[in-house]
């Protein structure tokens, strides 16, 4: 039995794949170092992330997989649910050990599962692109906070960069304490140890940090939302299917009416 630990990065995980092939020692479990429990049985392999090795694994996968299948593997990493490391490993092993392409073989459990995870993560990404609400601060920054089910922040950056090229904006993931900041030239990941906002405030800035027109536009948006509705067609079930309650915290139109 071989227990692999790694530093939690995607490159680290790819290095694990490399090491396992090097030793022909297939992992019983793969875990981030800080979470790993020392085991009485079997051997623990501490893998140090090695960019060169990670790259070789990635290039190997690239030769055998389409761009969208590669993307699915990365999405599985961002999925973060228990067992994702093993799944990525098993998928990679299936790819390397099969003489022919395995892509689209939904009769193989790993392939189907990765495809389903891709769908889940993609949906969350799309929801964040839809439900993020920026609030303009007095110094002209458009700020939003999120706490997505999966770690989709790296996936939504491109979308917002293209869309808001002419305004400074920041999105902060309150549950992972990671943020991105676009300064009109480039977007950088920032880890805020003491952001102006605590997670408990659920992403709302204090109103004294607002731009002078911020409240007005939030209010106009609420007015619009109320008046675009057709009461004769009310359909709460459909409404909730589209915006499950856990997303309401982002939406200014779902907050108490401003006066």
């Amino acid at each position: 039995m071989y227990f692999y630990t790694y530093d939690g990065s995607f490159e680290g995980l790819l290095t694990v794949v490399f090491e396992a092939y090097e030793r022909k020692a297939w992992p019983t479990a793969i875990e981030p170092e800080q979470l790993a429990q020392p085991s009485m049985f079997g051997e623990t392999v501490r893998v140090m992330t090695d960019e060169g090795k990670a790259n070789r694994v990635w290039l190997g996968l690239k030769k055998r997989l389409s761009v969208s299948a590669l993307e699915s593997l990365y999405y599985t990493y961002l999925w973060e649910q228990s067992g994702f490391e093993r799944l990525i490993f098993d998928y990679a092993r299936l790819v390397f050990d099969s003489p022919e392409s395995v892509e689209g073989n939904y009769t193989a459990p790993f392939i189907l599962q990765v495809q389903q995870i891709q769908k889940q993560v993609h949906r969350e990404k799309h929801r964040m692109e839809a439900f993020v609400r920026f609030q303009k601060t007095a110094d002209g920054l458009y700020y939003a906070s999120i706490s997505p089910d999966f770690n989709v922040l790296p996936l939504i950056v491109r979308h917002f960069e293209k869309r808001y090229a002419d305004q400074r904006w920041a999105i902060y993931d309150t549950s992972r304490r990671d943020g991105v900041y676009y300064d009109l030239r480039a977007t950088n990941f920032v880890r805020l140890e003491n952001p102006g906002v605590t997670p408990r405030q659920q992403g709302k800035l204090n109103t004294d940090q607002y731009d002078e027109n911020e409240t007005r536009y939030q209010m106009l948006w609420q007015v619009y939302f109320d008046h675009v509705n057709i009461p004769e067609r009310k359909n709460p079930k459909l409404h909730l299917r589209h915006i499950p309650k856990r997303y309401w915290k982002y939406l200014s139109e779902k907050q108490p009416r401003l006066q």
Partner: protein
Amino acid sequence: MNDKVIGKLKILADAAKYDVSCSSSGGKRKNDNKGLGNAEGMGICHSYTEDGRCVSLLKILLTNFCIYDCAYCVTRKSNDVQRTAFTVQEVVDLTINFYRRNYIEGLFLSSGIFKNADYTMERLVRVAKKLRQEEKFNGYIHLKTIPGASDELIKEAGLYADRLSVNIELPSEQSLQSLAPEKNYSEILLPMGSIKDQLVQAKEESKLFKATPKFAPAGQSTQLIVGATAESDRQILQLSDQLYKGYNLKRVYYSGYVPVSTDSRLSIITEPPIIRENRIYQADWLMRFYGFDVKEIVDEANPNLDLDIDPKLGWALRNRHFFPVEINTADYEMILRVPGIGVKSAKKIISARRFAPLHFDHLRQMGVVLKRAKYFITCQTKSLQRQDFDSEQLRRRILFGEGSVRSALLTQQLDLFQRAG
């Protein structure tokens, strides 16, 4: 707080909401001028109303003053409602500020007709022009084309807008004449035809010259009201078919009539025909994405869609001789015709069966919904169901049998009928 704009927004959003289109997809406008917005990809619904409709665009009228008196329209001249109008700048400010906060994908601007068609159209164009040229706005713009507006204005509108639409309003010329005496089909079809020609021309030119200015890259659409007049579903779907084929429309939207008027020219209804509208949309989808001909969906013997079951199931029950379909060998087109199997499932099936013969368990794991499909398919010649039900028995089994519940919508509507009765 600027109460004036709030008051206007209430009135002019209220008046615009019966226009159902909220699509923001199909635009190809990239943000390559370091401006604001990007409309290349697929559409995004930023919110949903309590009636479950997508909110993607700021959908408003420029004004609800109107010289026309169309019986079905809340903005008709004779209706006693408060009238107001936005200035061009007010619409621009709302659009930009909503967009910057990620509330919307763009603007859907329509209008009541003040003075005349050209006067109104000119203002709509001015809003779009200002957004594109002064604000460097690359988000989505959908402009309503006012019937009777000049060709030059429509052409200019197409330069700034991603989508143009002219509403056909009602499913037959006769209905239009009785309910909207100032309008007629030829006046509506004329701009539709001219937009089509422009679209074709722009496409041809872009093949020759790279820098051809874009013309309404997301195409044109139209809308008609269902249930205000007596047309059958067959008449409605035939009209849509003609519009798709003859005018290259991207979409025909169907708006279940919400009684906004007690005008004696209208059918008397108390509830919007939500289920009927839904069935018509399903039929429309079958024509556009599932390879169905309109004649297969409705014909002389079945001029109206079955409200209880979807039109694909309806077709399958009338055409049992095509079934069962063997999942492991049938063509994609035929798998797509199996009730309950959609485009995604059909593609997965085609992909997976290259590797191994498929069983029902594979289908379940792939997420194929078998509730209806199981009556119409075999996997390696095995079936999950005895296949000897007649169509009427099948219909009943699918609707009521085996714990299958009717859609919440249907139950809701039936409750309403009972209450009304």
